[in-house]
């Protein structure tokens, strides 16, 4: 299981990197952390003509928090973000989600943007980006565009990134203090890929749920917001009956595929369960409930 041959580019400035993409486009794969890419290469499931190693591009090593939010450049490792001072206050959902990704050895190499660009349906970061309504910056030779997360993921392992574009950074909007959050996932083995998972966020106002966000991932499709469940919840006062209805709506509107690990039916049913669990924790954190357990 050795990688096939490829040309190798490791420019030090972004313009050169974008030039490589402009010239070779479809035949190039960008190497950032390599934790998914090297797997695919070792299995020879892909055969890119060239790798574009962006790790030496200094401009991409960007990690800063300002009034607009948290900006994470393309070469920031998952572990770097995990250790970013004050992350638990800056963005508690990211702080909760990051330790779920792979293992600490893979987070030492794997990048935040790489996980988003790879768009594995079972990955946590795409679901978190979708929940946080992150903005993704795509750059090409001579231009850039900013894509909202809801328009970024097209299919499993497919995003809107064009062959001549690179995802250069992601911006997570500023955290609204008072919001509740939770990530729940189920795996056959602790700390493993999710069979299915849910990210929830609740914005409270006057003791009610002003705005709910529920994202289901690990379905075989790209992560998806449960919009019917969200809009049902929006503006309502928290109750057990309300939660039961939300769980049912998540089950109804979740699309899921069957594979060797789980059936579509299992994923839809458990997505509802996990949504319930995530919402209870999020509601507790948002100060909406004191209840501890729901089915």
């Amino acid at each position, binding site marked *: 299981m050795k990688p096939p041959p490829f040309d190798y580019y490791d420019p030090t400035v972004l313009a050169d990197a974008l030039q490589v993409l402009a010239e070779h486009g479809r035949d190039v794969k960008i190497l950032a952390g390599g934790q998914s890419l090297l797997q695919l290469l070792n299995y020879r499931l892909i055969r890119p003509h060239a790798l574009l190693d962006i790790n030496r591009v200094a401009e991409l090593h960007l990690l800063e928090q300002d009034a607009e939010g948290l900006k994470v450049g393309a070469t920031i490792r998952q572990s770097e973000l995990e250790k970013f001072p004050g992350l638990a206050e800056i963005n508690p959902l990211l702080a909760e989600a990051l330790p779920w990704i792979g293992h600490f*050895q893979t987070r030492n190499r794997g990048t935040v943007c790489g996980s988003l660009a790879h768009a594995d349906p079972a990955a946590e970061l795409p679901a978190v980006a979708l929940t946080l309504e992150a903005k993704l910056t795509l750059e090409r030779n001579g231009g850039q565009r900013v894509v909202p997360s809801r328009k970024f993921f097209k299919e499993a392992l497919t995003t809107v990134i064009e062959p001549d574009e690179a995802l250069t950074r992601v911006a997570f909007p500023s955290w609204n203090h008072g919001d509740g959050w939770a990530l729940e996932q189920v795996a056959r083995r602790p700390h493993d890929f999710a069979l299915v998972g849910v990210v929830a966020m609740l914005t409270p106002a006057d003791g009610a749920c002003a705005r709910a966000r529920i994202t289901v991932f690990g379905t075989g499709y790209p992560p998806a917001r449960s919009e019917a469940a969200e809009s049902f919840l929006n503006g309502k006062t928290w109750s057990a009956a309300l939660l039961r209805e939300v769980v049912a709506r998540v089950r109804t509107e979740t699309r899921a595929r069957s594979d060797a690990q789980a059936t579509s039916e299992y994923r839809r049913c458990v997505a509802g369960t996990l949504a319930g669990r995530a919402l209870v924790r999020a509601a507790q954190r948002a100060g909406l409930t004191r209840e501890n357990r729901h089915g």
Partner: protein
Amino acid sequence: MDSRRIQLTVNGQEKQADVYTRLTLADLLRDEFDLTGTHLGCEHGFCGACTVLLDGEAVRSCLTLAVQANGRAVTTVEGLADGNELSRLQAAFQRQNGLQCGFCTPGFLMTATAFLAHAVNPTEQEVRKALSGNLCRCTGYQGIVQAVLEAAREPLKREPSQPACEGNIGAAIDRSEDNRLLQGRGVYTSDIRLPRLVHAAVLRSAHARARIVRLDTAAARRAPGVLAVLTFADIADIARPFPQVQPHPALNSRLPYPLVRDVARYAGEPLAIVVAENRYRAEDALELIKAEYEPLPAAVDPESALRNAEQRVHDDLPDNVAGRFGQEVGHVEQALKESHTVIKERLTIGRVSGQAMETRAITASYEAGKLTVWLTSQSPHMTRRVMAGQLNLPLEDVHVIAPDIGGGFGPKNRYYPEYTLVPLLAMRLGRPVTWVEDRRESFTATYHAREQVHEVTLGLAEDGTIMALRDHYIYDQGAYTPIGVVVPHVTSVSIPGPYRVPAYEVECTMVFTNKPPGAPYRGAGKPQAAFIIERMLDFGAQKLNLDPVEIRRRNLIKPEEFPYHTKMIDMDETEVIYDSGNYQACLERALELIGYKDFPQEQARTRRERRRTGIGVACYATKTGRGPFEGARVRVEPDGQVFVYSGVASQGQGHQTTLAQVCAEYLGVRFSDVSVKNGDTAEIEKSIGTYAARVAVMAGNAVAMAAGAVREKAFQAAADIFAVSPDMLEIAEGVICVSRAPEQNITLGQIAQHLNGGISQTASTGDLPNGLEETRYYQNNQPPYANGTYAVVIEVDQPTGIVKILRHALVHDCGVMINPRIVEGQIYGGVAQGISETLLEELCYDEAGQPLADSYKSYLLPNAAMIPTLMLEHLETPSPFNPLGVKGAGEGGTVPVAAAIISAIENALGGAVRLRRRPVHPVDLQALMRASESL
């Protein structure tokens, strides 16, 4: 090809290299810098064996390119020790039995080193989480977790290490293997470096069943760096099918050629082999071979294969029957009629893959008419015999060495196609050739295990006494019969287990399918058998409204009934006789450890918390120490060093420690003076091998005999020297003295020198042959039976079907323990494999016969976060069937686990679902729970 010059620091040393840009960091370390302590276990980032530190941070070196390490600092396992002084962590691994085969160990050490650099007083749970990205197949993680916890604590004042003389039988001493393995100095087959070594890769059938129309190898032969390509046409002159191991009258023996001749019979069967200057180029060339197939209908499900002649694995066998056998003890039909309660069930057992952390590998060198082979073989002597036959070489020209082996568990005991092809290529090319199975190949190229379907009938008296048991079952043999009827036959005589079954009828049908052959894997037919009898007893208890433990108590064979004659006939036509044991005592102690009596209150409490917990118990008796013989040669050198030579190869069991302990005891020398050299066909003429929990029993007794014979010979020589009778002598720590005149003494080394002819001034040696050395073969066809009870408390997360082990206990009796710590390591690992094949592992196939797993992403092995600490105790009922009184310990841990866990799941659900299949997949369990009306 693109290459770069890179500079980096490795273990503090400046290094530079010109590397291909596609070279991984792991291969840079192993092949360019010869730092072979970094191991490749999966090459897709899941096993963690290749973990190194990059600028102090743990990373997977298989998922990092060498060019990405340019200008950075790498630390490997070779950089942990200070000279020969182990680091705190390494020393803790040795003390806590944190390693067995040692293959995964460097990765764990690097992971834990990185973790401990930041962790402050970590909890056990934190340690388990930190280690959860590394896989170990041997230890069940128990020793590893304890070692990391120990290393994390404040340094304690170390006890001075045990005096070496305390290394006799029964001493829980450190393993002699560990120091080397902990420093990354193990030499596994893939670490063998020979001048001009070239690398092979294998093209495998993409179809489960297909006629090979054409294999166009022209482009591959021309590819850069390629030295040879072989297809069947290239070996037709010498090719012959493998010989049948363990022939049997009931068997329709079918064995493969080393390469597919006309029809491929499973996806993964080898079609061609390429040799190139390195593995990268060999894999490039594989992609250039054009294979044209004519796909044929594949037999995938064994039951439909029996009925469907279209799906024919072998043309001449329309019903796909590979063998059929059975026996009856007592009168089953009559006993069923007389039974109070009769239960009929259909129980199925899924297919698994052994998955040692080191894949199979072979390195062959042919020089001056002699073939030398390093091989991941559990039985080098058996391999040598088959290899010599396959290659038309005289046996004496073939030398097979089993170096360090990274776990075996049974699948490495077979003969595989590469073992003919790689030596053949070495002979034809005139240069050494190596082949290392990759992880993807391991799922189809290495033989599988376990798959069976049982139709069982159990007859019980009103009080739960077993009246009769009938079991007709199917064994999915896969495409060939590499080891004949062995596995299903073991099942057939193991189903009654530790219970009295007065009337027993068993019939097995072995069915060919288009899947890789089935072969022994830890327990070899016994875990299936335990699953059957234990499930049936649970069902019986439910029906009779008995406590599941009570029905077991009432049927266990009692201590006074030993030796217990089962009247069953084993494969070698001898009766199955259990030697000794106290089955009740194991059961009762396991119940105490798990808290069986008070569990109902505990269960009620957790139920009030809306949690579903359950308890399960399973008993087992397992045949160990399979005959017919094993040998040992013991030799004392003039410097007093004692060498033990045995044919049995080690895959992590610590034989170099335990066999030395036996020798120290029976010869009368210090443990530290004994070195064990095993697994080399040049060192002893005959051997059977390492499997069926047989080494302690067969090789252990052989060492005892040979050591005793050397001692006798030494006493005879000393008696001549001192002019006394041998019975006036005694020996301690390698010094023989006259009992009543201790000043008259001589060392064994001096006697060896004397017997070698090196001392001239002493008395005649009579007709004693030269040298202080003896070889003995221990023969025994009366195997001892180990036994025990496993008890487990689990929690089912009802909405998701996820099962979590909360606590578990095992009380085990393997007779006299040569080294209790090593026994415990075997049990921990066996239990972990049992848990794994109950809750995680299954190798499923689609309707076309394609495997649904080819990676550790799709085939899950347990991690440290999943296996809690096992409460383990021993009973020691010596076996009267062998001089040492030992019973094998290798398989017992695996045998009872599935039955107990599944019983516990049913218990947690209050009997609302019935589980008839293993493994238990959360998706299936959740569906059963949802379908149940009472949940």
